[in-house]
């Protein structure tokens, strides 16, 4: 770079400018921000500025040293004089006027805006150098265009531009500058934002001639007063043909430009005026405009605009695809690939804002969030599908591109929860990790499934083996919840954290509802009952919470609850190692039906620790014969009696009456049994569990079993193997007896019916007898 010779005036001027730019008082380097401001103020087209920067070596160096700065300034002067930029011209050009810079603060703003708008086109040095100050990039750019048409004379604009010119320059050069601008229609990055709103706003401004005020506050809400003189003047000069060429709505462009111009001045006036807190608020006029635009694409206001149509529409705005992509991400709230009316308005608003120079926010502003309450449609299903993906167990599989068939109306809570939901994505995932319920669920599933093939009920959570009614309740609830426990428990456990997807709360309901219907298809007594789910949900959750605490003996899942027994088949009885004894205890609770309560069999008899319980069981066993009042003549019943007798450790009775005596004799024991069998059942379930699959014996085997019975009780107290063997045998007997019991119950019912019919006949016959 050859040496630069500066005249004295130039020297002084440059020095002043340098110190002006030297914000950090380094005396060596001019701050890039200021320098670029300055260049903007020079009102040179961007490419020229770029050229200048290259020539002066700043781009090579990365900063503006003093010499670079001076060279640059000189080149600015050269450029402003209309001379071609050459390094040689630095020294050869004589009598070069001093470079002109628009120094007013307002112009800095407009420089910024212009700069910002040019960023898209000149990413090279500028974007790195000046991060566009979002706050200052205001409005002006186009917001203005929002405003309605107020025809201002161009003289206004001219006047406003005059102060722009630096005092050292004679006014005639300013048009020169502008002329240069007009020579670079393409260089009008500045034009773009103006033109951008053109097609959009032209119709709008036509439509709303009088309402300029309303949108003003939005834009003026931003702090530094936007100044548009430069802008305005610029707007006036560029050939509208340039605009016209760029946009289809050519006819209206001119008016648009004018309105822009005029609006800017009004904005200037109003810039100090009221400031809305929320610059993203959509005014009514804007909204109306958006709605109209929406209608052009999709006549049904409650419908969607599919992604492709929206893409075409917004591509017309000439924003870069990246930004459009970001706008889409922000505005497609439910991530369904389609825009509802609210989403469309939000997107449109963002496009306009972007065209006017606003930075796109990282998150959708509150005022742009679709109000679910207002809309008829809010997507729930896609979220559910995402939730389903997360849980891996929900049956939904809606693809993201599908518009959900039904958008459930108002989810009022969702509207408020969305912001948090959006932010709590990590919570969602970590919670699931923490709970790791899916893992535990899986394990339990595999355990349970073979055990209870006949019931669809799967109990994933281990039951604490505490003998208590509470536990019984828990089991019952778990039974109810078990069907949907698998798929929904992760969900149910997670909702407190407000999972990431928007509609989590609704999706929980939906998934719960749906999985319930799925899961309960095979269950009998528990129809899909959302309310019940709710309660079971809470309980399920608590169980999930308590399950880790369960340090009880290896907890096999409990058998199906007694309440299931109503519809239980004999098979079910068979599948459980249920003894008549326990069944009787169950019968006590549910008189008419046979509750196949999974209770420890009489094989608990050999249970060393509970000889007393065995007696209790026996007592209960004997209740069954009692419940079959007049049927002592059942063959198997007698067998049963015999077995019951033999199966008992200490009892040896062959008659029902004896049993009843026993029962009476043990009048107190019936009171004790209710809790005891439960406990026993629970405790010995681990024993029973492995035997669960073995119960397939028929009544015909009973004889064989009974034959082997007498030997069993005597082995109590002997060595372990004998005990275990006896346990096994007892369990087999249990199964047999369970089946027997069920059959007997059936017979009991039949007999009762017969009895009733007989009595009726008797009644009918009696009068005749009197005759």
């Amino acid at each position: 770079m050859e040496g630069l010779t500066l005249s004295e005036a130039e020297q002084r001027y440059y020095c002043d400018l340098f110190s002006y730019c030297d914000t950090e008082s380094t005396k060596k380097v001019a701050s890039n921000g200021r320098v670029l401001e300055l260049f903007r103020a020079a009102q040179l087209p961007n490419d020229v500025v770029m050229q200048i920067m290259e020539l002066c070596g700043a781009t090579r160096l990365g900063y503006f040293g003093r010499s670079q700065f001076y060279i640059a300034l000189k080149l600015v002067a050269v450029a402003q004089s209309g001379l071609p930029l050459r390094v040689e011209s630095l020294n050869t050009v004589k009598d070069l006027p001093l470079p002109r810079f628009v120094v007013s603060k307002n112009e800095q703003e407009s420089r910024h805006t212009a700069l910002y708008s040019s960023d898209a086109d000149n990413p090279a040095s500028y974007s790195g150098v000046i991060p566009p100050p979002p706050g200052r990039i205001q409005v002006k750019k186009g917001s203005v265009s929002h405003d309605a048409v107020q025809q201002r004379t161009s003289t206004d604009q001219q006047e406003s531009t005059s102060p722009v010119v630096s005092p050292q320059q004679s006014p005639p050069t300013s048009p020169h500058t502008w002329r240069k601008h007009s020579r670079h229609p393409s260089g009008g990055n500045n034009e773009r934002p103006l033109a951008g709103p053109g097609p959009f706003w032209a119709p709008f401004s036509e439509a709303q001639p009088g309402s300029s005020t309303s949108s003003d506050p939005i834009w003026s809400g931003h702090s530094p007063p936007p100044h548009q003189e430069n802008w305005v003047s610029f707007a006036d000069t560029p050939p509208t043909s340039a605009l016209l060429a760029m946009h289809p709505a050519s006819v209206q462009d001119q008016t648009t430009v004018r309105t822009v111009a005029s609006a800017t001045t009004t904005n200037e006036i109003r810039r100090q005026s009221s400031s809305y807190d929320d610059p993203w608020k959509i005014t009514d006029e804007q909204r109306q405009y958006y709605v109209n635009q929406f209608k052009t694409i999709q006549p049904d206001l409650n419908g969607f605009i599919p992604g492709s149509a929206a893409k075409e529409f917004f591509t017309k705005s000439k924003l870069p695809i990246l930004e459009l992509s970001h706008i889409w991400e922000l505005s497609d709230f439910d991530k369904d690939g389609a825009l509802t009316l609210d989403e469309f308005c939000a997107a449109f608003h963002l496009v306009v804002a972007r065209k006017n120079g606003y930075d796109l926010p990282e998150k959708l502003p509150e005022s742009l969030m679709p109000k679910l309450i207002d809309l008829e449609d809010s997507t729930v299903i896609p979220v559910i599908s995402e939730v389903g993906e997360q849980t891996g167990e929900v049956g939904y599989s809606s693809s993201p591109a599908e518009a959900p068939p039904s958008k459930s109306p108002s989810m009022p809570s969702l509207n408020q929860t969305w912001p948090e939901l959006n932010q709590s994505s990590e919570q969602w995932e970590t919670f699931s990790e923490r709970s790791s319920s899916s893992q535990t669920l899986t394990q339990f599933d595999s355990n349970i499934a073979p055990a209870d093939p006949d019931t669809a009920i799967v109990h994933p959570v281990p039951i604490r083996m505490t003998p208590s009614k509470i536990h019984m309740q828990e089991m019952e609830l778990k039974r109810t919840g078990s069907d949907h426990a698998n798929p929904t428990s992760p969900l149910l456990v997670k909702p407190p954290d407000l999972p990431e997807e928007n509609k989590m709360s609704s999706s929980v309901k939906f998934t719960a509802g749906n999985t319930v219907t799925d899961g309960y298809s095979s269950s009998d007594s528990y129809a899909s009952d959302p309310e019940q789910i709710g309660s079971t949900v809470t309980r399920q959750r608590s169980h999930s919470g308590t399950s880790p605490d369960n340090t009880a003996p290896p907890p096999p899942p409990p058998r199906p609850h007694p309440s299931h027994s109503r519809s239980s088949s004999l098979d079910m009885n068979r599948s459980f190692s249920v003894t008549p004894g326990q069944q009787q205890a169950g019968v006590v609770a549910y008189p008419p039906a046979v509750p196949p309560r999974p209770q420890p069999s009489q094989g608990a008899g050999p249970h060393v620790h509970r000889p007393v319980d065995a007696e209790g069981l026996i007592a209960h066993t004997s209740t069954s014969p009692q419940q079959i009042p007049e049927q002592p003549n059942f063959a198997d019943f007698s067998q049963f009696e015999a077995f019951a007798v033999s199966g008992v450790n200490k009892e040896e009775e062959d008659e029902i009456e004896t049993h009843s005596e026993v029962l009476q004799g043990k009048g107190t024991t019936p009171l004790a049994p209710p809790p005891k069998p439960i406990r026993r059942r629970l405790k010995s379930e681990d024993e029973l569990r492995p035997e669960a699959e073995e119960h397939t014996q028929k009544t015909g085997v009973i004889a064989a079993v009974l034959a082997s019975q007498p030997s069993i009780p005597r082995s109590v107290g002997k060595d372990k193997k004998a005990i275990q063997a006896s346990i096994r045998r007892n369990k087999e007997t249990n199964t047999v007896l369970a089946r027997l019991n069920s059959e007997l119950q059936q017979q009991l019912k039949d007999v009762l019916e017969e009895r009733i019919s007989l009595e009726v006949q008797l009644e009918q016959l009696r009068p005749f007898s009197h005759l």
Partner: protein
Amino acid sequence: VLVSIISSPPQNYPLYIRSVPTENELKFHYTVHTSLDVVDEKISAMGKALVDQRELYLGLLYPTEDYKVYGYVTNSKVKFVMVVDSSNTALRDNEIRSMFRKLHNSYTDIMCNPFYNPGDRIHSRAFDNMVNSMMMQVC
């Protein structure tokens, strides 16, 4: 920790790569590239198209001296590869799965965007934020 999304075959070029400790990035890139072979191996071993999510998660592809590589493939054969330091408190498999799930969800969100053409590099800010936050969690 590094996360990368590789496009579907036959191109197999990365749609997105992001790593948290930015040094050694080249090494991670290389690792991802080599792990693609393992992924392909696993995919082919799976046989017919399996739609279950379990099959989507490929698990630990291979452990090397100080890091582990996990893989995940979508139904459209877009592969997610995650490289984590072994020095990290051993991340449970469950956590890795959930991370992949999140990735997959975000990826589908990106796909929803009509302005995104499949096969483009992913520039979404929201996606970046999600990935960053996820990686921060791990580190």
